[in-house]
């Protein structure tokens, strides 16, 4: 599906006039002029990497705000040119920082907020508000408005129209203009905030935007792990609806692991897990910890203790309901050409020791090399159950669209149950070292 542009050129109007303008646009006395009755989406869209790549002339504009291949390719190239570790993920902050030190003043048209991914536009959002911070510290607040009607790709006549609002300017000027957002998000429609960036940047602004009645979309793979897990847990605890793209990307792993234990005769093994090993790409542990926490919650394991080691690995002890200890180890692996999502899982090994039966070793790997690594050490003497897990490579907008279309407006109970365990695993191990 290709991204869609707004049909009309966005109209630049002063911020204070936007609510009235939009009210008139959708006034009910104009027949056939009703906006869609769906949801509003507020997007924090800094696109720092894209802006820096354009500024330094490494890619051409316009600035769109999507994770397109061209950006990923340029970022990977810069990792080699800039002597950054080869395991640096394309959207890592270090790339943006290093690019920021480079000369360059190329400018390009900024279409953030006007270039709507078709996966999202197919859901016919009522209003898309994009906050597009610029690199230029002198950029004053600009506000633009456009109505749009997504054209269904299948040609079906079922379009319902919405509008887009873009607030562009330096962070300081954007912060000053935040007052106009509230009246633009009608109470009768669900509103979402998609924080499309690192979770540790501009925390004050995050707090201002992420008010409790807004449903959050965040990515706990982006930002300092402690901040990511802490924020995830604290927001869920307040009852806010939190949707985590990092958790969403675990789905294939959870599904495959569940599939292994679907046949009833294998289920007893789940009561006898003695060891869990999780391998991740690079050193961002959140996704791995969330998987371990999910298993701990589902299988009633009690967390006992954890340690972090110099190589970034984390070891922990859980106890089963029969008090038998379970060894858990999270192992970061340096990968040369990492995925765009930091800390993606690459392998899982779970060893179960039923008392009267042969031991069972479940190995899930994203590639055969990883399976071989996890098979080593005599695993073949056990009943070996191995599965390949397809790597998630959806564009982030598609994942967001999936959340927008499937969320019930509350946090997944499984994520809610897993987040405190994951935080505990991380904090306890950090505190010890």
């Amino acid at each position: 599906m290709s991204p869609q542009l707004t049909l009309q050129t966005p109209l630049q109007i002063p911020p204070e006039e936007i609510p009235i303008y939009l009210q008139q646009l959708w006034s009910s006395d104009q027949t056939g002029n009703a906006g869609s009755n769906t949801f509003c989406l507020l997007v924090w869209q800094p696109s720092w990497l894209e802006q820096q790549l354009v500024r330094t002339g490494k890619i051409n504009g316009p600035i769109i705000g999507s994770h397109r291949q061209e950006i990923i390719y340029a970022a990977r190239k810069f990792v080699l040119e800039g002597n950054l570790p080869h395991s640096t993920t394309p959207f890592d902050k270090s790339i943006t920082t290093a690019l920021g030190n480079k000369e360059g003043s190329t400018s390009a048209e900024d279409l953030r907020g006007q270039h709507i991914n078709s996966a999202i536009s197919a859901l016919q959002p009522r209003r898309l508000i994009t906050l597009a911070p610029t690199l230029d510290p002198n950029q004053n607040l600009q506000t633009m408005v456009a109505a749009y009607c997504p054209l269904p790709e299948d040609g079906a006549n079922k379009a319902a129209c919405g509008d887009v609002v873009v607030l562009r300017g330096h962070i300081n000027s954007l912060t000053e203009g935040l007052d106009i957002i509230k009246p633009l998000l009608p109470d009768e429609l669900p509103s979402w905030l998609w924080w499309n960036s690192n979770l540790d940047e501009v925390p004050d602004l995050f707090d201002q935007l992420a008010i409790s009645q807004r449903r959050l979309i965040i990515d706990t793979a982006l930002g300092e792990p402690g901040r990511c897990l802490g924020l995830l847990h604290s927001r869920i605890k307040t009852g806010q609806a939190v949707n985590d793209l990092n958790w969403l990307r675990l789905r294939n792993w959870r599904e495959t692991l569940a599939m292994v234990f679907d046949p009833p005769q294998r289920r007893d093994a789940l009561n006898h897990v003695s060891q869990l090993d999780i391998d991740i790409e690079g050193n961002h542990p959140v996704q791995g910890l969330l998987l371990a926490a999910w298993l701990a919650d589902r299988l009633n394991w009690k967390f006992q203790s954890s340690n972090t080691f110099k190589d970034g690995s984390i070891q922990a002890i859980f106890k089963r309901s029969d008090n038998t200890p379970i060894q858990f180890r999270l192992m970061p692996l340096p990968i040369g050409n990492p995925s765009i999502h930091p800390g993606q899982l690459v392998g899982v090994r779970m060893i179960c020791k039923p008392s009267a039966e042969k031991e069972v070793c479940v190995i899930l790997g994203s590639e055969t090399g990883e399976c071989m690594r996890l098979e080593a050490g005599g695993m073949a003497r056990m009943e070996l159950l191995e599965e390949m897990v397809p790597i998630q490579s959806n564009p982030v907008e598609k994942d967001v669209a999936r959340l927008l279309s499937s969320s019930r407006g509350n946090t997944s109970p499984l994520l809610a149950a897993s987040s405190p365990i994951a935080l505990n695993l991380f904090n306890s191990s950090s505190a010890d070292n």
Partner: protein
Amino acid sequence: MSSTITNPLRVGLRQERVITPQCLVIFGASGDLTQRKLVPALFELFKQRRLPSEFALLGCARRPWSDEEFRIRMKEALSKQIGNENKIWEQFSSFLFYEPVDLQQQNDLLKLSERLEKIDRSNATHSNRTFYLSVSPKFYGSACRAIHSAGLLNDPKRSRLVIEKPFGKDYGSAQSLNQVVQNCAQENQIFRIDHYLGKETVQNILVLRFANTIFEPIWNRNYISSVQITAAETVGVEDRAGYYEGSGALRDMVQNHLTQMLAITAMEPPGHFDPEAIRNEKAKVLQAARLADELNPWTCCVRGQYGPGGSKESPLIGYQQEDGVSSSSTTETYVALKLFIDNWRWQGVPFFIRTGKRLAKRLSEIVLTFREAPVHLFDAVGGSPTSNQLILRIQPDEGAEFRYDVKSPGSGMRSRPIEMEFSYDQSFGEPSDEGYVRLLADAMLGDPTLFTRSDEVEAAWRLYTPLLELIEDDPQKLPIYPYESRTWGPAAADSLLAKNNLLWRRP
């Protein structure tokens, strides 16, 4: 046997679509279907957290019940399903409302509109409404007109109409009913329900065929020699004699459930998984289907009626002795048919269809029999080589099996058939949802994939028109063969297959 231990890792992994805020209005809410199927299915959806929090079920019927009375009656009807989940039931029952409505009374329609608006305000259902006609089929047309005249179907995006089977009683009446319904609502608002399509195993036929590369290349006349589709019941007419006497097995089962199984088994692959693409293919294959001999339809159909049977300890009465059944009734409780499909894929392949009450076993299955190997190199243990068979078990013991020959152990080279099994229970260990759970959710989601479109319904009726006309005009040409209760039907049904040197499968 279903496992009682659920897979703890499976919880929450089902990818369910979210139903928008919704008010489901059931007309005929005091009837049997509401208690037996619809409310239980909704309760199940509620337990699975698949109903939105902005939901309401408004039951409508002539009886002057209150909301509370409706809730009490539903609770009584569902007592087994509720078990010790009283708390969950209490939460669910707060979504249940009742409005006495006679659809022919203008005043009642006004009251209904007001009640719906009130529910929109109290339960935030945003005017999204699904109207479910669970009334007698003879009222479908007038009910549609009444709902339409009250303006309740005006918004094609927010209002839908679900119509139970049977949709018409022959080709002409189905056409007329389609006209009436389509005058009241757009086709994309109309959901003609056939609960067989809600069964996991029926939907699995689509996945089996179109998600695997090994089946589709051989799924045609070059490799398949015949297809048998069976829907057998062990029960008799029970308390449905009033309806069944005017309907019979042909209208009650064949025109809808079995024909839908036929369509899904025989359709061409759709271009993509899209409701219209699938329904186009189903309609096309039904339009290409015909009775094996349309000019002499009595040669390709056998009708039967169950007589007494059972054992000394538990004797079973015959159909004519059932309450509400005429002692000289000629309604068929069994029917077997031979069909052909005139297209490139299926030309010349006979499709045998049978259904009946009080048969030996309760089961629904589709059996694809493959052509024999061109040369028989080995002696067969059974005397003659057996054809490969793919058996799709719709119910019970849902799954599939593939029968093929292997070497019989021993020093010789003799072949014998064995079965390669797939069982839902063994693989997934969890019972699948009732058809109505899936279909009610789909209707509220506005997903028509598993509902029959007007052209499908008409094609299905047209297929059996020569038989219905014959039964009407010259019934002695299609005599009713009696069969003993709890057997596999009249022996005459074997003659349909005999011409092809085949036998009915006796599972």
